[in-house]
């Protein structure tokens, strides 16, 4: 597995090079894209981040959650509410606020949900997410006039005089957030903490026997994951210009789950691949086959399970390994 693929220090320069190359390509690709393509890439980055955050609890700690949109939506609603009620646009205020709110919601959820494990964890997180969803429907303060949800969000104000964001520069802003989050998440999953999470996923009772406070580890993982989902939510609110109750509920909770499983659970970049496949397939299928796209998307899930059970990311990786071994491209 890719998780176990840890390198020695000697190789560490070698491993950072491809990441830098990847970042570089993400950095120059918008120059060749139409505005629509840039928007789509922005969307992909946001959902990739969302799926990566989900991967921390699901992939590494093994907690199958169906309420992750609550954290994502909380981040988005923080942005929207600040705009609606206090007319605050400044990113340096809204972003920390969204992050805090998402973290807070995750901390609350964790207290209730982590009393149970397995399938019950899924059911409890689903219930909590739906609770927030119904609150957002029913509480007037959480809606702007004439709709359920909050509209009228603009691209964020970065507080730099004489500079305002457009589609392209917003993409770069999202990219920077994405890269910083990636680095932090990478450190997290490679730290002793991250390894302990994998240990808990594989054998909870043994970890407990060795003296780990399993509950605390899971709880921390959930809260950290919630915080990153919150960042994705903040960015999404700016990207989408509005938030709606759906962003808190089950409809959105399914997305990171599907992306993470499809790309490769518990691998670092798997969810990113999953997000790419999901977003691009959904978008293009629905452009070219407006009435039949759900068939393509559903079929893709089934095919993934049949032919690439560990995830498309891992599947591609294995093909690549075979090919590269045959032609001797890769060292050892």
């Amino acid at each position, binding site marked *: 597995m890719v998780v176990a693929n840890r390198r020695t220090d000697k190789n560490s320069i070698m*491993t950072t090079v491809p990441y830098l*190359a*990847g970042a570089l390509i993400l950095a120059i690709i918008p120059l060749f894209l139409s505005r629509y393509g840039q928007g789509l890439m922005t969307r992909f980055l946001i959902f990739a981040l969302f799926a990566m955050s989900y991967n921390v609890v699901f992939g590494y700690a093994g907690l199958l959650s169906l309420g992750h949109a609550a954290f994502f939506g909380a981040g988005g609603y923080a942005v929207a509410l600040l705009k609606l009620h206090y007319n605050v646009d400044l990113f340096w205020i809204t972003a920390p606020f969204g992050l805090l709110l998402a973290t807070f919601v995750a901390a609350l959820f964790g207290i209730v949900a982590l009393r149970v494990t397995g399938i019950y964890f899924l059911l409890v997180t689903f219930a909590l997410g739906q609770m927030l969803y119904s609150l957002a429907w029913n509480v007037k303060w959480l809606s702007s006039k*004439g709709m*359920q*949800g909050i509209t009228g969000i603009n691209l964020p104000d970065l507080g730099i005089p004489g500079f305002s964001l457009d589609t392209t520069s917003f993409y770069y802003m999202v990219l920077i957030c994405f890269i910083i989050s990636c680095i932090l998440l990478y450190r997290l999953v490679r730290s002793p903490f991250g390894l302990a999470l994998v240990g808990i996923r594989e054998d909870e009772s043994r970890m407990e026997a060795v003296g780990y406070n399993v509950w605390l580890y899971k709880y921390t993982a959930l809260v950290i994951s919630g915080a990153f989902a919150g960042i994705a939510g903040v960015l999404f609110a700016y990207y989408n210009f509005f938030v709606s109750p759906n962003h808190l509920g089950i409809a959105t909770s399914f997305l990171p789950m599907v992306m993470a499983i499809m790309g490769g659970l518990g691998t670092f970049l798997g969810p990113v691949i999953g997000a790419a496949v999901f977003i691009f397939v959904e978008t293009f299928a629905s452009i070219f086959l407006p009435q039949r796209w759900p068939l393509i998307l559903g079929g893709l899930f089934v095919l993934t399970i049949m032919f690439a059970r560990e995830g498309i990311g891992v599947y*591609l990786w294995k093909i690549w390994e075979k090919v590269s071994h045959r032609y001797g491209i890769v060292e050892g």
Partner: protein
Amino acid sequence: MKKFVILFLAVGLLVSPVFFGGVGTAHAAKTIKIGSILNLTGPIAFIGPLFKNGIVMALEEVNYTVGGRKIELIPEDAAADMNVALEKAKKLVERDEVNIILGPLMGDAHMAIAPYLANKKVLTASFYCGDIELTKYKNWFIYPTTLVGLTAPVGYYAAELGHKTMITAGTDYAGGHGFIKGIKMAFEEKGGKIVQEVWWPVGNKDFGPYLTSLKKADTIGYFVEGPSAAQLFLSQYRDFGIKIPLLGTTLAADMPQQITSQLGDWVLGLKGQALYMADMDTAINKTWVKKMTKRFGQAPGGLEANSYAITKTILAALKATGGDDSFDKLWPALLKVKIDTPQGPLAVSPEGVALVNNYIVELKKKGDQYYWDPIKTYKAVEDPRLKK
């Protein structure tokens, strides 16, 4: 891990050509692109194709040409989800560079896309009403009228029937509140009294608890959010043996034939507000119905009539500008349009709200065909709030 990244990039490069689609076509294109946001999948998937039929018919009549320029229709699926609607609006504007968008249908989707489209100066038409809030953006062609304007005749008609008291019953979301408000404002304006207001949540299935807690009143003015909910509401209204007469809205004659034909004999005599009836006795309607039936193999209903009238209006405006689809030319031309549609005469108010006839209809039966008989016409009804 390195290979992982490389692979990832390879996949990215493979799909990238699709992104470039929008580049370079901007100036070369002489065609007028009209985008349409329809619901082709999701809970109201049957509605999208019907709206599309109306648009296609209007465009085929002019052979996809206006003012010497070709027209290209780009239909998109919004899956009855406002997030998707916004995605598709962005796609239409940024990739296809359209200046005109027809649809979407649902009010929340209107609100979701309105600020974006106002900012991009895209002429947008609503398929079936819109909140009065939309008029402030000055780029919305709201057909047939605002939410309140549409249902006002229900209130007027209830008062004319001599009803003194009314229960309003509607779906608890922004659009539902708008429609119910129209009934209420008009009924109270004529001296009627609302004795009870019943609200149920969107997607409600079991109307039993509401139907069994109704007070006494002369009539029920109701709005349910879609044909499937209307079916549930009506069948449960029957099953619970409620005797208070119904005066409904939007889902009376506008219901496609497939839905009306399922209702059954017990609904004969059901009255409600409607915009269009397939057997309206005007020459223009008769030829249109014939053409539609021939082209699409089924008789048209109110939904096709709506999208047809909208497309006709836009074509008339495009003709007036000589085929110039830039917003600054098109908008003033649109406000001056006066045409006849199968639905009746159409004009546009300075706010961009259509002024059309509104009808009160009754369900009747001829042989084994159900049909809606217009029993009263309200000419060019306007939102009472816009008159002031």
